[in-house]
């Protein structure tokens, strides 16, 4: 086993004509982590996954998986052997049953996990005798999840894996991801707009904005440093407000002001008091609040 990070991306850029999808992206995802990849539509998430999978060539910069360069042809078999991804197009052979699709797929992968595939099939209540073309969109997503999770891969790149799944199926899918990380030390990159799911299972967070990484760190560390202070002043105090606004995003509503901080804030709380705040309340930010604040600031 190598000790290289599961994913390492340095100054990665990708242009599609005049559109700059990525402009100097840096990311480092340690092995064994379940990392959430979040960002607005068009931030560069899918482009990042495509470059990692070697489906597109970078305009500049470098990406590697387990220390192997992603756009090297000689390493691509090795990378593919260890990496699984959900396909962008969910088409499958229309004449095969689910059982046949599984039987066909497992032949390609030496580490295929029969027991896991069977368990997921049961949990998702997919009937092996049915054909994929007769499945609903959600059921098709479930089948692709089975095919991806049971491959025995060391790295899984999952783009919106729970899109269209009901809450029960979502929980089954998240539980399967957690199990893979716990039992086989797999690394998962989970790209999703469902921030509550990421918050539930991820230990690492990557936030991409306009083709660059704004955040790439432990989710616990991020939550420990991000807070919102709500301050109350008896009288309007523009000087105090100006002083506080240096520390983070500042908003006023009547006598209260809120200040969003992305760093340790004990000193800021003390400063607010010394500037005459009669009340200082500090509340943690969840991922949803954090996301909105990051985009606005």
């Amino acid at each position: 086993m190598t000790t290289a990070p599961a994913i390492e991306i340095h100054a990665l850029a990708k242009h599609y004509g005049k559109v700059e999808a990525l402009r100097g992206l840096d990311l480092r995802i340690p092995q064994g982590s379940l990392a959430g990849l979040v960002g607005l539509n068009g931030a560069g998430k899918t482009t990042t996954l495509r470059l990692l999978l070697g489906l597109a060539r970078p305009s500049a910069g470098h990406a590697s998986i387990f220390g192997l360069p992603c756009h090297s042809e000689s390493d691509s078999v090795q990378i593919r052997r260890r990496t699984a991804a959900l396909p962008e197009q969910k088409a499958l052979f229309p004449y095969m049953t689910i059982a046949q699709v599984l039987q066909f797929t497992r032949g390609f992968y030496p580490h295929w996990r029969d027991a896991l595939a069977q368990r997921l099939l049961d949990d998702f209540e997919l009937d092996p005798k049915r054909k994929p073309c007769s499945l609903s969109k959600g059921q098709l997503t479930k089948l692709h999840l089975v095919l991806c999770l049971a491959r025995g891969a060391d790295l899984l790149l999952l783009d919106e894996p729970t899109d269209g799944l009901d809450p029960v199926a979502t929980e089954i899918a998240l539980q399967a991801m957690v199990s893979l990380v716990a039992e086989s030390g797999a690394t998962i990159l989970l790209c999703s707009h469902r921030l509550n799911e990421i918050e539930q299972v991820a230990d690492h967070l990557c936030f991409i904005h306009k083709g660059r990484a704004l955040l790439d760190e432990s989710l616990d560390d991020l939550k420990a440093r991000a807070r919102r202070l709500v301050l109350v002043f008896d009288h309007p105090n523009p000087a105090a407000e100006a002083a506080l606004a240096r520390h983070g995003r500042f908003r006023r509503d009547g006598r209260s002001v809120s200040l969003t901080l992305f760093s340790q804030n004990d000193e800021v709380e003390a400063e607010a008091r010394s500037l005459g705040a009669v009340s200082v309340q500090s509340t943690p930010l969840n991922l949803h609040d954090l996301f909105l604040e990051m985009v606005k600031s």
Partner: protein
Amino acid sequence: MIFSLNPNSGIPIYLQLMEQIRFGVETGALRPGDQLPGIRRLAESVVMNPNTVAKAYRELEHEGLVELRQGSGAFVSTKIDTGELAGRMKKAKPLVKHTVQRLLALGLTEEEVRRLVEAELRGHHAPNPPEPSK
């Protein structure tokens, strides 16, 4: 032991887990020598990241509340004195009860009491209670 974690509260999940294990020991739901669920089993049953469970166990080991035994898992430490702990909690209870009753009698709401206690714990002066809205 049943854990009830809220991943979307903004409080890191490992801190919530640590708090609930501590609470479990204080209430007697967990006793010295009890085995805690394995990292993998707990991660799967509450659907959370196994590294987060491991982090909570490590921190609790550091505090002396939990013993991690190589190969056999995590146990509530046999060295902690739950009698003393329970005794302290028992002594504190009537004090808190009395104070809370008086505050409620003064017309404060539960939320106001909670905020006063929290502000006091942070070592700060409590804010002036807002005018009752109703």
